């Protein structure tokens, strides 16, 4: 049980690293898919089967495909050599990241210590339960997302259609 978590955690981190370190977008994309997959497993372990499924279907299935598609479309190859811009990012970036990590980790540790993730009472995360919640208390957000998607479609059309 735990062992699975740690295995996939390590996998996620490693894949995440390669997302960041790969110079070719395609490889980053593939590593990202790995991350998403391993996260899906972890979701499963954390009692979120429905979300895990959505993760696999929507994320890995739809979004990443879109990404790969665009990568192919624009045949984005290796990054060219960086001409020397973004000074601040280059000299301040790494320390900032480390600082962020450190600060944050310290706080988390201070606050939670070793309290187990799974609380005493179980969590009913069956699709039915989620559905009930979604269409009762969260019906408004659910409806509003339609507008969001509408916007997305509209935007995609406006920006990507060839001739003005």
């Amino acid at each position, binding site marked *: 049980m735990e062992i699975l978590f740690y295995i996939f955690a390590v996998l996620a981190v490693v894949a995440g690293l390669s997302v960041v370190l790969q110079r070719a977008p395609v490889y980053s994309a593939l590593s990202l898919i790995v991350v998403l997959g391993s996260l899906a497993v972890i979701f499963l372990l954390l009692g979120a089967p429905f979300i895990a499924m*959505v993760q696999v279907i929507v994320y890995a299935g739809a979004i990443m495909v879109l990404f790969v598609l665009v990568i192919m479309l624009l045949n984005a190859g290796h990054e060219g050599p960086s001409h020397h811009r973004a000074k601040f990012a280059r000299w301040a970036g790494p320390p900032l990241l480390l600082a962020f990590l450190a600060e944050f980790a310290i706080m988390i540790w201070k606050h939670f210590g070793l309290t187990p993730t799974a609380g005493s009472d179980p969590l009913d995360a069956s699709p039915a339960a989620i559905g009930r919640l979604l269409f009762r208390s969260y019906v408004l957000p659910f409806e509003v997302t339609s507008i969001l998607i509408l916007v997305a479609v509209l935007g995609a059309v406006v920006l990507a259609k060839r001739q003005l």
Partner: protein
Amino acid sequence: MIPLSHVLVLSLILFTLGAAGFIIRRNVITVFMCIELMLNAVNLAFIAFARHLPNLDGQIFVFFVIVVAAAEAAVGLAIIVALYRNRNSLAIDDVDSMRM
């Protein structure tokens, strides 16, 4: 039993990796993917808390985040395509004609 802090630290690591990618990568698409990575890290946190509390709202939230991510992806990629059409390049460092 998995300590909550471990899960959160994992999500933190992923989040930071995403941020790192944003800052060091020079290809717009990769940068965008790093953002997706960050969002996933957030999702992980939500799931963990949902399990911890325990309380389903977190999972609902994740659901919406994924939807939003999808929408963002669509628009973002469209923007990137437009960018490529204009500049014929995906190098993020070229996008600095306006400054100071």
